[in-house]
């Protein structure tokens, strides 16, 4: 037993004199550090990718639904009156919350240029709410005094519909958007009223 032990020690001594050997742990430990970092980077990236793709897929689903809603409300770009508009928005079948209104002063959109690609990319990248807050309180929503649909908001110059029961007033949209990421669309449309056929703008907000 002792001889075997002596042989073993001699063997180890011989090994340690050979080039490239610095001991069992000493030989492997330095290589473990980069391997550890490699695994950390790989699984970290993998987790990030899974989370990002999940978020993006959810966003895209909502985004395409919002386009679909806006297209459905837009129809042929012609409303024969408020009743026609009202019927159109009420038949939209969606689980998303939206508001659709007719406005006649798009100048007040100000810096929020809806044709600016960056606008979409900004909201796409989930930046802070303030960056894409829509100043809806500045809008003049279109309405005429002779229409019964507008009676509930007769003191306001707008006509807007929403499928969200919490939605009471267009001026509260900002409060709703505080915790949401809205998509908004603007189209020129024609509205026929007793006073004539007017060019107004359909504004659709989906959140």
């Amino acid at each position, binding site marked *: 037993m002792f001889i075997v032990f002596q042989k073993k020690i001699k063997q180890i001594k011989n*090994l340690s004199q*050979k*080039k*490239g*050997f*610095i001991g*069992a742990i*000493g*030989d*492997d430990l*330095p*290589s*473990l*550090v*980069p*391997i550890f*970092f*490699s*695994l950390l*980077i*790989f699984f*970290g*990236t993998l987790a*990030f*990718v899974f989370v*990002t*793709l999940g978020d*993006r*897929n959810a*966003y*895209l689903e909502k*985004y*395409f639904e919002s*386009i679909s809603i806006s*297209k459905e409300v*837009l129809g*042929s*770009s*012609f409303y024969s009156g408020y009743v026609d508009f009202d019927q159109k928005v009420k038949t939209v079948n969606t689980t998303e919350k939206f508001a659709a209104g007719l406005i006649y002063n*798009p*100048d007040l*959109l100000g810096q929020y*240029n*809806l*044709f*600016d*690609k960056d606008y*979409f*990319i900004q909201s*796409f990248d989930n930046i802070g709410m303030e960056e894409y807050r829509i100043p809806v309180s500045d809008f003049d929503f279109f309405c005429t005094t002779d229409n019964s649909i507008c009676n509930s908001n007769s003191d306001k110059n707008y006509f807007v519909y929403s499928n969200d029961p919490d939605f009471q007033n267009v001026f509260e949209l900002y409060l709703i958007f505080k915790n949401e990421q809205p998509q908004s*669309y*603007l*189209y*020129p*449309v*024609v509205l026929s009223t007793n006073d*004539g*056929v*007017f*060019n107004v703008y359909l504004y659709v907000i989906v959140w």
Partner: protein
Amino acid sequence: MASKKINQKGQNPKGIFGQLTLFGENQKGQAAVTDALFFLTIVAVVSVLMFTNAMSYGKSLIDTSVEYYENTYVISALKTLYAVSSPLEPDKYNVFDSSYNDSLFTMLKKDYYVHNAILSNEMKIKVMESLKEIMTPVNKNKNYLFYIYNPKNIKGFDEIIMAGFVMNQEENDEKITYICGTNSDPQIKNIAMGDISYYLSRHLLGQRFAEGRLSLLEKQGLDSTLVIVNTGLLVWTAVPDIDKYGDFLDPNLEFIKTSCCEYTPGTLKCEISP
């Protein structure tokens, strides 16, 4: 462990990549480290690729849907122009300022018939004013062209009935409107005919296009003939086309200046009769 076995056989340590060792052959413990560093490099490259792909995921879809949205806007704008009202008075353009309104295109048809297959300048101005009103939300960022084009007139050849450009001026970014008529330069005909590659390649970034049809009546002796003409609305990203002196930055566009009239509210300045 692989390197340990190699060392026990008395060989010089080399990694799995043979000669590609970072350290000299007489260094101790270098083979396993080299392998690990290569592994780290590969993982880093793979991770960067995954990260890049994840960040760009879905953006092309968004770009496509933005294009779709813009196209829908242009189509909707053209449809609106077809149906919108305009004041009957020649010098009024806002329907809220007038008690006597009629459909813009009904007035256009009457005008075309009365003036023997030519549109009056007043009518062209009314059309452009209505269009500018419709395009208000995108006025800052878009230039546009509206035209009415007869592919085969009564004499058997094509002609422009009207064309209106709304373009950006350098420095102040103000819009300048050019209204063109039947005596326009042939290059304007090319634009209306769809042969727009010349123009597109130089100017029309992010162009969107909508086309429609319009039936017009032309006098032919005591009878009338129905002609079907094309209407088109071309919208593109606003880039300055005109310098502060009113000249086109691209000399190839001089044909617009020489063939059309510059319109500012109240005045129509023409180098030649449109």
